């Protein structure tokens, strides 16, 4: 009776995991009943959440065991604190140890301000965890389409993943729109111009420049299907991968370095009517993107 499509953007961390994994296959590590909460938020008289804003555990996708992590973007903007970060670090270390793939559903504004130092180092530990797991042959698939986007350190972790799956809503960047505006002025970045923000940081643009690999509808089933496909790809992270990424990112600056707006880049890609891109439905866009986009493929 409800809307048949379950929105990924709207879903919480637990709902996303439930949609991703095979029914009844998920087992959480250090679940909310353990009340492993942030020891730091009380300093600021802020409420804690029993899972510190991240759910980690193991489950199966299409019968294949995987580790899964999902950030809760509504709790403190999905920001990474000490416990939150350590849960993901531990999961990635386990992935390397037992050679099991990892799926991370990102939804984060980056480091949690109130425990900034702990969060910053946690990001570094997680990035190391991702890269070391990948070098050991593990796939780390990132999913981005939540309300908090994937900002700050989250954007850097995403940049270490083997495959990134995004929806239109999924924004990937380092500095958030409001922070750029505060520091550099509204002429540099108008954070209230929402269509500009999405055009610059959103899933469609990231897909077109090769910043994300797979574009999907805002639908939990679409994310699941794309995840299954990504888990079937050959894992690889070695010198050749990074040499190819180096070339890919250098080429991006050469090709688009002078562009002042995303639509300029889309035009340079050969798209006739770049201003029509934002309104395009997901399927139409994905087809168009396949023709014109830059891709990362093995250069990630």
């Amino acid at each position, binding site marked *: *009776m*409800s*809307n048949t499509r*379950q*929105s990924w*953007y*709207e879903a919480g961390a637990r709902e996303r995991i439930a949609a991703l994994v095979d029914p009844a296959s998920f087992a959480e590590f250090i679940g909310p009943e353990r009340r492993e909460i942030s020891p730091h938020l009380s300093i600021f008289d802020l409420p804690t959440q029993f899972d510190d804003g991240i759910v980690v555990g193991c489950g199966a996708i299409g019968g294949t065991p995987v580790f899964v992590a999902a950030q809760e973007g509504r709790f403190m903007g999905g920001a990474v604190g000490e416990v939150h970060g350590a849960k993901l670090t531990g999961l990635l270390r386990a992935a390397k140890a037992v050679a099991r793939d990892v799926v991370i559903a990102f939804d984060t504004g980056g480091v949690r301000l109130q425990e900034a130092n702990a969060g910053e180092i946690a990001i570094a530990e997680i990035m190391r965890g991702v890269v070391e797991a990948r070098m050991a042959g593990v796939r780390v698939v990132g999913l981005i389409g939540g309300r908090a986007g994937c900002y700050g350190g989250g954007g850097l972790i995403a940049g270490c993943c083997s495959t990134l799956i995004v929806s*239109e*809503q999924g924004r990937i960047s380092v500095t958030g729109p409001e922070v750029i505006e505060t520091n550099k002025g509204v002429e540099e970045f108008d954070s209230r*111009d*929402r*269509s500009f*923000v*999405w055009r610059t940081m*959103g899933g*469609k643009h990231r897909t077109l420049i090769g910043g994300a690999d797979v574009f999907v509808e805002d639908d939990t089933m679409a994310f699941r299907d794309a995840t299954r496909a990504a888990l079937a790809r050959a894992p690889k992270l070695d010198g050749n991968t990074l040499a190819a990424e180096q070339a890919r990112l250098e080429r991006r600056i050469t090709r688009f370095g002078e562009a002042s707006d995303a639509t300029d880049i889309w035009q340079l890609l050969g798209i006739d009517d770049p201003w029509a891109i*934002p*309104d395009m*439905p997901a399927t139409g866009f994905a087809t168009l993107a396949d023709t014109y986009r830059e891709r990362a493929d093995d250069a990630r």
Partner: protein
Amino acid sequence: MRQWNTRKALREERIAAGGVFANAKAIDPKHLVDFLEAVLRPGDRVCIEGDNQKQADVLARGLADMDPARIHDLHMVQSGVVLPEHLDIFDSGIAKRLDFSYSGPQSARIARMLFGGKIELGAIHTYLELFARYFVDLTPQVALIAAVSADRHGNLYTGPNTEDTPTVVEATSFGSGLVIAQVGEIVDTLPRVDIPGDQVHFVLDAGRPFYVEPLFTRDPAAMTETQILTAMMAIKGLYEPYGVRRLNHGIGFNTAAIELLLPTYGEKLGLKGKICTHWALNPHPTLIPAIEAGWVEQVHCFGSEVGMEDYLAARPDIFFTGPDGSLRSNRAFSQTAGLYACDMFIGSTLQIDLSGHSSTITANRIAGFGGAPNMGSDARGRRHPSAPWLQAGAEADPDTPAPLRRGRKLVVQIGETFGEGNAPLFVEKLSALELAEKLDLDLAPVMVYADDTTHIVTEEGIANLLLCRNADEREQAIRGVAGFTEIGRGRDKTMLERLRARKIIQRPEDLGIDPLDANRNMLAARSIKDLMLASGGLYRPPSRFRNW
């Protein structure tokens, strides 16, 4: 010997004086202020649009730029006090007296100016009342109106946002007043003629479209689970049992949630075709999914809504459209339709007292009435029967023999027990009463009177006031749905259970509503983008509502 044509003679004088700054009917835009000072006289009764949505904004600017030494003490009669200029003219002394209906965005300032004595208040009206008075004792001497385009003869095309214009022009022009129109462009051939040129005396080519506010767009992304719960209760506890087919919705999130639940929850209850088929309603974007799913047969509109134009033109079976294909709205007719031809009004409010009076006045804001009291009142002149009307009448008055019994319109207030800023919906004393005392008004500005209100819906339950037999029951029924507000916590629990047994109060659990269903997945659209996609790309949301 009495002269019987002084009014027409005065109009001729005004036309001659204005003609100095115009080429035939076309005002020289460079001399707009000179023109206005030439046609106006101190103390004139002036109507400016000034509507709920569209604004004759360039003419409003022109009025404000006049010299108060030359033109002063105007008596403004206008349905909407919306632009800052509408009040600037009172600050400068150009205007003195005000009769109006609605003052949404200026509600705080108008309150300050009333307290400060800057405005001499005639009265705050409902739309139909003010329109009625245009024809009785508030006929404008000059009307400043807004249209999309004009031709060289002064014929006007008012487009989807026709709104008040025909009413204002009818009263002014045939009442020997002067009609001045602001248009976006002057063209050779109009798409259609909404106002005949012989009723229009001057035209200003503003060179750009008039300002219009997207007032009826509610972003589904902001809808809460509590609002969804109240919407489910309204559908299951009111729309279904009364079989409400002809209705009007107010503009809150609660009613927008009802619109978005029709194709999902309503479908599950098997109500398609049985409820919500005929509407007096602005083109709410949130109604798109229900229209597309085949729920809606016909909608008549007060005005249009920004971004909905192409969608409306593509659905002429549902909406009233002209030979050019675009929507024709008309506030006076749609208000009449809402008053006489609808069986239900449901809307949100800010305060409800223990007898059931409700008001949108808060301590420092005077938002006016708009049209809600026209919809939200029992039409005593109504004579045609319908099932919901008869059923409501029978509930209120079971003893009178049916052939002599009046039916009742369902007038429903819906909201959460705590509103914005945790303000309680239920209060001991309406702020409207305090305001009336402060301003020494004869009437407190009550939006919907207690004796018109038939039901109150909150997340706590539905109170059916029709079934209450005395003031005490009524008070306890209201307390019973007032949740954890002070009013709600003062409820008598024993009495409450008795009222529940008589279905005067129905809780969500009494209606068989599962709290787990109060979930955003239940909404047929969860974002503005979903609405755009549901319309097949025909709905083009204004940029402020976009996040893609």
